[in-house]
């Protein structure tokens, strides 16, 4: 039987959170849903812990970056018959309880973007960087989102084929948005809650600069 929805969890050195995230996703009991963990060359026990949960775990022999891990998970899912893809972070930032809302919002559209509520716990530099990148995105690609950097997203496999990205690192989120604009896909945005558990992981200021430069490049490139 084809399982229609694949929840893709890219993970790099997330032995502390991966088990909880997997179990919480399972608790949602979404019909026809399977979980695919992509271990992006972890040096801790992430792979073993995910494997113990008895689900599909794809393992990168070396660390390639979040964008590459998402692409591996999405390619695998599409090749094995998934119709809908949900991307969720493995660090426990995202609430798996939102998955049914994502899938509901996906009806009649191509992509659903999760948008984080601006909480006091969100580091100020992230708030500023995010807001700046949102504005550049809107200006260059005509996509108006309150949060272009959240990794919590859902899309149809057809949409994935159209916007399959090239970024290996953290600019993947922006490239997805850019390609959505370029391919004129239908999108929606839903509000999500976020928990900041690790101040030192995720996008850095240098990543932010790279993202903005990449956005200019994507605007000029044909694809």
């Amino acid at each position, binding site marked *: 039987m084809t399982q229609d929805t694949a929840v893709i969890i890219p993970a790099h050195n997330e032995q502390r959170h991966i088990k909880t995230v997997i179990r919480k996703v399972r608790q949602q009991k979404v019909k026809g849903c399977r979980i695919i963990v*992509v271990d992006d060359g972890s040096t801790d026990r992430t792979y073993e812990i995910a494997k113990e949960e008895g689900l*599909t*775990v*794809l*393992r*990168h*022999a*070396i660390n*390639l970056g979040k964008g*590459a891990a998402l*692409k*591996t998970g999405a*390619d*695998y899912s599409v*090749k*094995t018959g998934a119709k809908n893809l949900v991307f969720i972070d493995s660090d426990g930032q995202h609430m798996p309880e939102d998955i049914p809302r994502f899938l509901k919002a996906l009806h009649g559209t191509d992509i659903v973007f999760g948008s984080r509520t601006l909480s006091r716990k969100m580091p100020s530099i992230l708030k500023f960087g995010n807001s700046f990148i949102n504005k550049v995105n809107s200006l260059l690609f005509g996509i108006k989102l309150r949060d272009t950097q959240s990794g919590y997203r859902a899309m149809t496999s057809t949409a994935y084929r159209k916007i399959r990205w090239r970024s*290996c690192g953290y600019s993947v989120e922006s490239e997805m948005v850019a390609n959505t604009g370029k391919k004129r896909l239908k999108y929606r945005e839903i509000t999500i809650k976020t928990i900041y558990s690790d101040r030192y992981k995720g996008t850095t200021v240098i990543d932010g600069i790279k993202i903005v430069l990449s956005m200019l490049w994507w605007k000029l490139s044909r694809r």
Partner: protein
Amino acid sequence: MLFGVQILILLFGLVMIYFTFLYYKRSNYDKVGLVFWFLVWLGFIFLGMFPQTVYGIMEALAIERTADFFYAGGMVVFSVVLFYMYNITMKNQRQVEILVRKLAFKDAGMKPKVRKQKKK
């Protein structure tokens, strides 16, 4: 008589020739690579010792000082090398990504795609 900068060029060129030979012995490249880099460093030393050999080109390009000519030339060479290295790095990065993904699929039990041959 050699000027200070010429002594520096000579020393730099000789050190680079030594490293070129050392890395050849470590099998980093073949004889073609060895000869190419030897010629590069020998040419570098030659131009440093006999800068008058480029006066003709300098005149054609309306460059007055020899140092300016070498700065400009160095920038051009540097840009070309940077561009070349960028291309190689990007190509290698793509290939590594594809390879790592293929291995991940193989480990997960997915059969590799077999391309059908076109009937003649």
